[in-house]
């Protein structure tokens, strides 16, 4: 009996240790400090084209990938299953049109499934026609082996948006990051409330690295500033659920600020205050048109941190430069991640774009704008 207990205890310790080793760290002070510095730091490249800018000076040598056109650029996409990805993918297809050297652009949609994306990448590699492979991974851990396999086949690989835990790709294109997003929204909340204020944190879903870091960054800041976190609730990105959650908290007491890890449901949160007949407090959002317009119309204290969709353009540019043999920022291409504040709100509002259009698309100068994004001139 004693032996059995010992064995079970031993196993438990082993499992706990393994889980500890594998659990990604979503609360990393060093990364937090680094991203905080990058938010205000200088970027190389043309200031009027943020999708070409990059932090730091490290470059990746791509001479060995130089190839004559026309190229076939293959793209394994995690999905086009939310408005952010719809806008981003449009950015990407329009960017492809800027490069006559791209003979074929092959897009495979994993529809939000790790398994499908792994199979997609296998199929693309087996097809043998790709000159370069762009991957927007559905999830970090699951897609890492597939990306490693693609690297091993000798193809230049560009990863963007969510990351993988290997540095074999030519570069990993992404904006400053999740902590940065959380910091921008968090600082705005702290600046517009006083100590002891009630903050409701609304999150989409647990477990996604870029979302977890947004929350952990903001949570630490709120605690430090002495704000009272009413709760952290998951909305699944659902408007109805979001509105109900905010209404529920309003029934229980006052809310001085709503912090959101993504703006898709920000308007539903604002509506909950409107419909309850309560003044709208600080509500953070994102660069979606509906939120920006609501913010302007009601004049509450808003801010729109962004996770810019222009990174979808950058992924194509990185692939093109690699195939030309030109050096690209690497192993990480860190893009600027601006927040839309009250001062610049007007320049991002465009009522001729669809309500779910993301304003920080860097797409206004592209030939297909605005029709390709569903807008009207």
């Amino acid at each position: 009996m004693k032996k059995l207990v010992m064995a079970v205890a031993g196993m438990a310790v082993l499992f706990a240790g393994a889980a500890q080793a594998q659990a990604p760290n979503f609360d990393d002070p060093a990364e937090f400090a680094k991203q905080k510095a990058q938010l205000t730091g200088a970027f190389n490249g043309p200031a009027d084209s943020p999708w070409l800018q990059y932090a730091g000076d490290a470059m990746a040598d791509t001479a060995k990938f130089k190839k004559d056109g026309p190229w076939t650029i293959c793209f394994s996409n995690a999905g086009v299953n939310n408005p952010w990805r719809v806008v981003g993918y449009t950015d990407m297809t329009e960017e492809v049109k800027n490069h006559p050297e791209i003979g074929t652009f092959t897009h495979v949609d994993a529809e939000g499934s790790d398994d499908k994306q792994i199979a997609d990448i296998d199929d693309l590699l087996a097809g043998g026609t790709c000159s370069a492979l762009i991957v927007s991974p559905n999830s970090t851990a699951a897609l890492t082996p597939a990306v490693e396999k693609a690297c091993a086949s000798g193809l230049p690989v560009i990863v963007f948006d969510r990351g993988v835990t290997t540095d074999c790709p030519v570069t990993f294109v992404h904006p400053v990051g999740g902590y940065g997003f959380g910091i921008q929204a968090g600082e705005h909340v702290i600046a517009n409330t006083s100590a002891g204020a009630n903050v409701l944190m609304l999150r989409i879903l647990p477990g996604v690295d870029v979302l977890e870091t947004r929350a952990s960054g903001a949570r630490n800041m709120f605690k430090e500033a002495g704000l009272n976190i009413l709760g952290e609730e998951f909305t699944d990105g659902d408007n109805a659920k979001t509105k109900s959650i905010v209404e529920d908290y309003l029934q229980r007491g006052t809310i001085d600020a709503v912090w959101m890890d993504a703006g898709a449901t920000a308007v539903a949160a604002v509506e909950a205050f409107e419909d309850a007949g309560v003044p709208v407090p600080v509500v953070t959002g994102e660069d979606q048109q509906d939120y920006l317009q609501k913010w302007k119309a009601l004049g509450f204290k808003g801010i729109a941190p962004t996770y810019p969709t222009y990174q979808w353009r950058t992924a194509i540019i990185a692939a093109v430069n690699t195939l030309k043999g030109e050096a690209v920022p690497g192993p990480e291409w860190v893009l600027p991640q601006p927040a839309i504040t009250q001062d610049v709100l007007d320049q991002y509002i465009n009522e001729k774009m669809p309500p779910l259009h993301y304003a920080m698309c860097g797409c206004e100068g592209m030939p297909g704008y605005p029709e390709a994004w569903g807008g009207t001139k």
Partner: protein
Amino acid sequence: MTEQTLSTPGSARRRLLQINPVYVLLVALLVAIVLLNPAFMEPQGYMNYLKRAAALAILSGGALYVIVAGGFDLSVGAMMTLTVIGSSMLASNDPNSTYWIIPLMLGIGALVGLINGLVVSYLRVPSLIATLGMMITLTGVAFVWSGGAPRGYLPDTFRFFGRFNITGVPLVNIFPVAIICLVVFGLILWWGMHRTNLGRMIHAIGDNQRAARLAGVPVERVRITAFIVSSMSAVVAGVILGGRAGVSVDIGSGYELQAITAAVLGGAQLLGGRGSVPAAMAGALALEAIFTLLNLLGLPQPVRQVVQGLILIGAVALAMYRRKRTGR
């Protein structure tokens, strides 16, 4: 068991058992809410509660038709989702589109109900399976239609029914349009079930299909009608819910079970033959009141699911017990 064989229920006790407990439950819950949150007594408090419950109450009234006819309709939640997604896609931000979109959606709802009814009546597929299949199908249609991401938006004219409050009303100050919809559709559903021949025939086929057929009831036609009513009430509920909350891809999920729970809470008999529209709607209000109460007690959302499951089992058990005691 021994108690039952020994004692004979007295007439006073029988009368007591005939008061539908759902009304007692509802009043008790509302009193509890007021004790915890006196602001609920203000018009803003109880009007918002009714506004929130309106969609589920209408849905439960419609779902009751299928339940009394002896079936289940699991496709209503997906029908609500399809209504919201489809309307947002068709509207494409045009406020004038509401006038044709809602009738069109009601038409689609009627068609879906017709298919459900035909499959159950003529292909002899049990309604649980037939409507489960329909639920998956409709969810898929909504997904394909929207490409997985709602790109459209519901114009304010559409959201009027679920969101707008008439202000300046004497006594209560605000009066949500959703509550007017609740009363109107509640009356229609009550009239259809309790004051028409159709309602009597629905009861008859749910109670004893063979006897009903021998008595000349057109069983298939009546059952198909019940499914059509259920689907169309889902469209109405979808319009109200979408109006209240806006577009989201799985707005209706879970509502099919809430509707069944509400109907059972209202004393409807699963597998048919007995049920009341006002009681089912009171069941929906009670369910929403329970959720409000759990919220005021500070319990997290997942606890609702636990409670809802327990209520479903408890209500059916209670209904079976009452049925035995009253000899029905």
